[in-house]
């Protein structure tokens, strides 16, 4: 318990005249330097707290959160794996954090070497020819990849390529990305087994198709067995194959995407490469390409001349900059640290254990929450509710009740293909004991639902707040104090 009333805002705890951090004042008033008409006359309504109260305020807020350090997050497609503590200090070493981006390359050789080596390792892991580390997130990476594809087609004078094919199981960012690039989105229905329907794909491919965006394995946790045939069809049509790398944790160290026929892909550093989620960001999304597409990558890029690391800032074919400067460097340094802790042999233990753990959870819950596809899955499984045994139970209730039992909920209602979807991705960093505790909790919920499904509507009951009125929040938005 803390000594403040629940959820008071910092502004409500403020008292006029209270100061947190102070600075020795300037020698002269600003009006000596600037004309009066430019000077601010109003006082912004910011908090006025002591530093102590500020620290208490935010520390107490933090304690209202679930987080990886305290709770299991079986979130499908999010790869919530352990964020190694060692990297926190390393990425914030003063020589990294205090560097201004205008620092000449010669004085930033450490950082440039890290960027270069991260690119090298990603090339080895994927088999692709080059990477950009500029994107700030997966979606940002998708946008970058789609722009590269369009630039490639335009360069080949194949200017009518303005369609992007997306399976109906795709994450929402895929079609949104296509629309952002001014492309028409062609949704193709998946086969009954959740995979790409080859016939539907053949129908959708035409001279206007710029790109096929695929998540591999797909969002129902299954590997696209026919990926080589898919890639052949795509390439024969003059189309590029884009891999959404959100699920790379199932394949890393086992399959090289280039061998599947992938031309462009993005990797979420905050998923596969263990950088922290930070409550919603910052992430980072590396984008890799085949040799023919290297020239289109955003600039600048890092090169090594045998002695020094340098920036290359000129390439007429480049799509330009998708963000200012070089990328989320503090995050890239974390990814460097993570990859350096594996070698060619141990890298595969990530995917092996991730897939093992997901199948174990699936097997333990088989008689309670059957997998939508009753077969071996990859690093995540999609379960559903048995409508015959539990006609009144909804996925949202399962999710909220799990919060009471000390687990973050899995991904729910995605992919849209699966009704009452519960998508579980344990990751390789969870122990069997944690997986068993989670399975036991799900079974407890199952039994509660058998006895009294209505009781679950009130969940969660033991969290800092109960279910929130989202309708009012949307109808009468209160977005600031």
């Amino acid at each position, binding site marked *: 318990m803390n000594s403040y009333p629940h959820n008071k805002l910092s502004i409500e705890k403020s008292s006029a005249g209270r100061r947190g951090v102070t600075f020795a004042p300037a020698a002269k008033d600003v009006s000596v330097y600037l004309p009066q008409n430019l000077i601010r006359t109003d006082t912004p309504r910011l908090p006025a707290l002591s530093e102590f109260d500020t620290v208490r305020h935010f520390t107490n807020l933090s304690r209202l959160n679930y987080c990886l350090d305290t709770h299991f997050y079986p979130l499908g497609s999010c790869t919530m794996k352990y964020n190694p503590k060692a990297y926190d200090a390393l990425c914030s070493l003063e020589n990294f954090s205090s560097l201004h981006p205008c620092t000449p390359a010669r004085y930033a050789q450490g950082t440039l070497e890290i960027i270069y080596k991260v690119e090298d390792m990603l090339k080895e892991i994927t088999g692709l020819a080059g990477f950009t580390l500029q994107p700030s997130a997966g979606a940002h990476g998708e946008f970058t990849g789609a722009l590269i594809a369009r630039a490639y087609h335009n360069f080949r004078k194949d200017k009518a390529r303005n369609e992007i094919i997306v399976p109906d199981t795709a994450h929402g960012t895929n079609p949104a990305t296509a629309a952002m690039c001014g492309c028409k989105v062609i949704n193709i229905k998946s086969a009954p087994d959740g995979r790409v329907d080859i016939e539907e794909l053949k129908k959708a491919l035409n001279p206007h198709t710029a790109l096929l965006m695929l998540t591999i394995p797909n969002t129902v946790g299954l590997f696209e067995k026919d990926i080589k045939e898919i890639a052949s069809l795509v390439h024969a049509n003059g189309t590029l194959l884009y891999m959404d790398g959100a699920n790379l944790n199932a394949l890393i160290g086992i399959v090289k995407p280039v061998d599947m026929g992938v031309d462009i892909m993005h990797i979420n550093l905050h998923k596969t490469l263990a950088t922290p989620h930070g409550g919603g960001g910052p992430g980072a999304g590396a984008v890799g390409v085949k040799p023919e597409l290297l020239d289109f990558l955003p600039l600048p890029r890092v090169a090594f001349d045998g002695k020094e690391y340098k920036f290359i800032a000129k390439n007429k074919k480049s799509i330009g900059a998708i963000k200012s400067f070089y990328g989320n460097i503090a995050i890239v340094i974390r990814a460097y640290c993570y990859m350096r802790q594996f070698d060619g042999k141990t890298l595969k233990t990530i995917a092996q254990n991730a897939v093992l753990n997901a199948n174990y959870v699936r097997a333990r819950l088989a008689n309670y929450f059957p997998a939508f596809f009753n077969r071996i899955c990859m690093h995540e499984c999609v379960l559903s509710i048995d409508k015959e045994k539990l006609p009144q139970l909804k996925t949202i209730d399962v999710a909220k009740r799990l919060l009471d039992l000390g687990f973050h909920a899995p991904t729910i*209602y995605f992919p849209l293909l699966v009704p009452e979807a519960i998508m579980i991705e344990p990751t390789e960093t969870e122990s069997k004991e944690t997986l068993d505790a989670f399975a036991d909790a799900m079974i407890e919920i199952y039994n509660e639902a058998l006895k009294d499904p209505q009781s679950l509507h009130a969940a969660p009951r033991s969290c800092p707040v109960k279910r929130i009125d*989202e*309708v009012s929040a*949307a*109808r009468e938005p209160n977005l600031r104090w």
Partner: protein
Amino acid sequence: MYNQEKCKFSKTHEWAFIEGGNAVCGISDHAQHEISDIVFVELPKVGQKIEVGKRCAVIESVKSASDFFAPLSGEVTEVNEAVTSDPSLLNKAPHGEGWMFKIKISNPAEADKLLSFEDYKATF
């Protein structure tokens, strides 16, 4: 106001109340029930030309954004500002105060393709 029995319906749950060369449009009671609590309505603009079967409005709930497809072609002559400030009207009175917009019909023959209330009810 726009009695269900007197309206014509599209298969995608929009209704049109036709009077002379004009029509009032909205979503059916079935639709508002399916969407559940409506939090926002994106209406077309006055003067906008809409085409039958094409999206001309969006209805948002907390968890979804549903497309509203024009039941008839025409030019928007009036929009119901009340539903912009109080979207719950679409839930409470989809055939009354929750009407969405009015149009001047450009192709009267299109009305023949719409369903009567009885036929519409039979579709679900």
